[in-house]
């Protein structure tokens, strides 16, 4: 698997080999992933599609060092994450990974800028918090608390928080899931910009096939396996998406 997407500029950020994930639920075993191999090219933009329960979140969590596979290998720039201990995984997340979730997960007691600073304070070479907010178009909302912002605005703060550390990898689990078209597009535009301008390798989970047009590679999962995979010759701009 060495498809060279238009946005990718060579080299692998992460590569997954024959990854399985089995959840033990008492007597029952749930096979969330049944042998998945995926590569994330440096600077690439990947979209993960698939029905509910197909294992998308599980895959993303393993990519981000939130979870470990039952078997298989996950290499981040050659380093084996499956052998990493808790502390190494924490360092991996801290230095390399930016996460964005469906439900924003902002800290309600911190305002927008402080939510971003939460990350910049523990990073080596972060973007200034204000600049990160500027990128997502929220420079003027920096002193507002999450409770004073709309869902889309909160999600953009979450993106600002994720990109402020200049992550190698930006992982988004249904970032537009809770949003309407207009705000959804604003959020995607922000992600697109980060991928383009800062070269962050990006992976997005979505249920919305239309969003796949902005990726350079689309992977579809079904029942824990990759069912389809293709490379977009040209990437559409987020603003042109029809919901």
């Amino acid at each position, binding site marked *: 698997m060495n498809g060279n997407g238009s946005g990718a500029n060579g080299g692998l950020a992460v590569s997954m080999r024959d990854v399985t994930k089995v959840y033990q639920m008492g007597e029952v075993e749930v096979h969330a992933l049944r042998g998945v191999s995926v590569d994330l090219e440096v600077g690439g933009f990947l979209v993960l599609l698939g029905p509910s329960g197909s294992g998308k*979140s599980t895959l993303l*969590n393993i990519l*981000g060092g*939130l*979870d470990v596979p039952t078997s298989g290998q996950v290499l981040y720039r050659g380093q084996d994450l499956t052998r990493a201990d808790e*502390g190494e995984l*924490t*360092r*991996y*997340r*801290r*230095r390399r*990974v930016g*996460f964005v*979730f469906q*439900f924003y*997960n*902002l*800290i*309600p*007691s*911190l305002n927008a800028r*402080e*939510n971003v*600073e*939460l*990350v910049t*304070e*523990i990073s080596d070479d972060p973007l200034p918090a204000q600049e990160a907010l500027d990128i997502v178009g929220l420079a003027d909302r920096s002193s507002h*608390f*999450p*409770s004073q912002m709309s869902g889309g605005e909160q999600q953009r703060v979450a993106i600002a*928080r994720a990109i402020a*550390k200049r992550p190698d990898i930006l992982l988004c689990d249904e970032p537009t899931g809770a949003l309407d078209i207009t705000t959804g597009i604003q959020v995607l535009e922000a992600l697109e910009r980060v991928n383009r301008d800062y070269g962050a390798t990006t992976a997005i989970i979505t249920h919305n096939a239309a969003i796949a047009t902005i990726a350079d590679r689309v992977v579809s999962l079904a029942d824990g396996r990759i069912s389809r995979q293709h490379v977009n010759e040209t990437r559409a701009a987020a603003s042109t998406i029809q919901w």
Partner: protein
Amino acid sequence: MIPALDRKLLRDLWRLRSMGLAIAVVVASGIALLVASLICFDSLETTRDRYYARHEFGDVFANAKRVPRWVAGSLDELPGVDRADTRVTAGVTLDVPGTSEPVNGRLISLPDSGRPVLNGVTLRSGRWPDPGRAEEAIVNERFAQGHGLELGDQVFAVINGRRQRLEIVGTALSPEYVYAIAGGDLLPDPTRFGVFWMARRHLATAFDMEGGFNDISLSLAEGAAPEPAIAELDRLLEPYGGLGAIPRAQQISHWYLQNEMTGLRGMALLMPMIFLGIAAFLLNVVLRRMVAVQREQIAVLKAIGYSNLRLGLHFTQWAVVVSVLGGILGIALGALMSAAMLNLYMEYFRFPDLIMRWSWGHILAALLACGAASVLGAAAAVKSVVRLPPAEAMRPAAPDTFRVSLLERLGLKRWLTQPLRMVLRNLSRRPARAAMSVIGIAFSASIMVLASAAMDSFEELMQLQFNVVQRQDVTVTFFEPEGRAAFYELASVPGVVEVEPLNGASARLRNGNRNRQVGIQALQPDARLQRVVGADYQPVRFDRTGLILSRKLADVLGVAPGDTLRVEALQGTRPERDMVVSATVDDLMGVSAYMEPAALRRFLSDSATMSGAALGIDPAARDSVYAALKGMPVVAGVALQHAMLESFETFVAENMNNTMAINLLFAMVIAFGVIYNTARISLSERSRELASMRVMGFTRAEIGVVLFGELAILTAAAIPVGLGLGYSMLAGMLAAYETELFRMPLVTEPGTFAWASAAVVVAMGLSAAVVRHKLNRLDLVEVLKTRE
């Protein structure tokens, strides 16, 4: 089939078992204290009342110099008197084989025929003395045990300078000596005070009391007040050197017992209230969180058709189950504790048999207290359940609104990292809850302070009394006021390096209808051994004319400096005179009036006012000094400084460890209960934030700051509050316990504060460790997958 809602209850109970358990243990501690104190109180009261009734403990007691036998007949005629008994009693020094020190003894006459009716004596072993044999005596059981005396053993009483042999033929108990303590001592020492009962005839002969008596006990008719009898008795005894009658309430053994029981009752009320109040607070916090988390479930249940009543009950049930569980545990613990406590009491208070009182009323009271605490704790949560409109509740709760905290607005913002800001804002968003947590933790610190500072105060009392006020090695009291000859006799004993005469007289001070019988002490202004020193460590300055009173005595008599008192001497020619109170002194033991020696002599127009002496002795010559004192006819009693200090040290060693351990345990229970629950609730409220932070790459230690920073701040705020609270509780307690026998100065050693703070910090560390364990198992994926 268990109804679905009750199955939910059971699962909630199981899910929150650790919090429930922590609360149940707080409840159990409070209930254990309540039940134990109630059982102890009732058992002691029943035991005492039965004992007093069966052995006809007197209602009024009096001593005189020598009363002719024919006066006895008129005792029965006194107002309200049911029965009167006369005896011959004497304080003597004892020579106990194997003990070099002179020991204080009390000899009490037994009727020549029959047994004493009032103040009945219970034979515990051996037999009654043969009235025909002068040397036979029975001794109080504790003394025999303290010295390992067996039937047939001998001790010697020094009577008029002659060693009189006493042969022990039995051991006994008496309601007069339930608490056997020598006058002037603070703590009972079984080896230092012996009571001997012997045939009257021989005792009377030895003390020149043939055809007379010097000790009167009265029992009163049901419901009769003691005052009229006391007034008449004093008048009757005046010509015979009456020393003032006292009611039972002032009888020393009874007084100590009563004092202890009052303390027990206080404990039965105060401590459980603190524990149950804290439990109610914890229930409140946990239930409110439960309702907040289950908001949508409650809405759905309401939508399905569950009534407010049913749902309110559902949440109340959780609280009731937790506290009733705690209550049952507490009742069992309390029963065990009461047995241990009663055992300890029986070390100090001697009854022929202990009647354990265990009533269903106690259990009911305990369970009611639990019920009240749980209902109180559940009230707020239930109210919010009832108020919740179903349609609205299906939507997520309005997000919490946060503000920049005060500390940040004061300009500290630059210095605070984001996790610290989270801590401050979380705290300032729920100030009431933070304040309650602080108060809860503070109570645990205050319990520690109270327990340990009470000991500090007691030690201070001892230190002041025995190192500053009384610096002598030995205090000797005489049978009769003596003149200079006794002084020289003592001074000539080899090994006595310093003698200071103690001049004094027994007197009654009267202000209107308030009066007290006290000793007037006349100390040399330049006294080196026995001095008058207040709690401020300043020796009192005497002036020519006035009377200086113990502050407590002035309070009792209702006088202040400048007022005039009527002073009636109870010895010699019994002169009376009005005297001006010139000052009061905050002395700590006993109550006295103090006068300049020449003034006292003038008042009594009598040169013999030396009632005893303070001695400084050469430690190397101790035994020979003791031997000499035992042989001196004038000596009625010998108090030894080192023996008092030793019995104090034993007391501290025995009680300090127990009291401290128990209080430490209770303080830890409270601190742990409050801190653990606070931490768990925070964890529940913050798990989403904390998980997000973990995803961002914060380490466990770093997110620990958010959770444990809050605990640390609460604990840090609680410690000074707790120390202050403990200090004021101590002040209140010492004021309440201030008695005419002793008053404890309010002092706290720095070590006490350090102890209390350390205990709270340890409890915080423990709770943090337990919560940390949960925090480490926080499932990041799980938490973030769901909407709050």
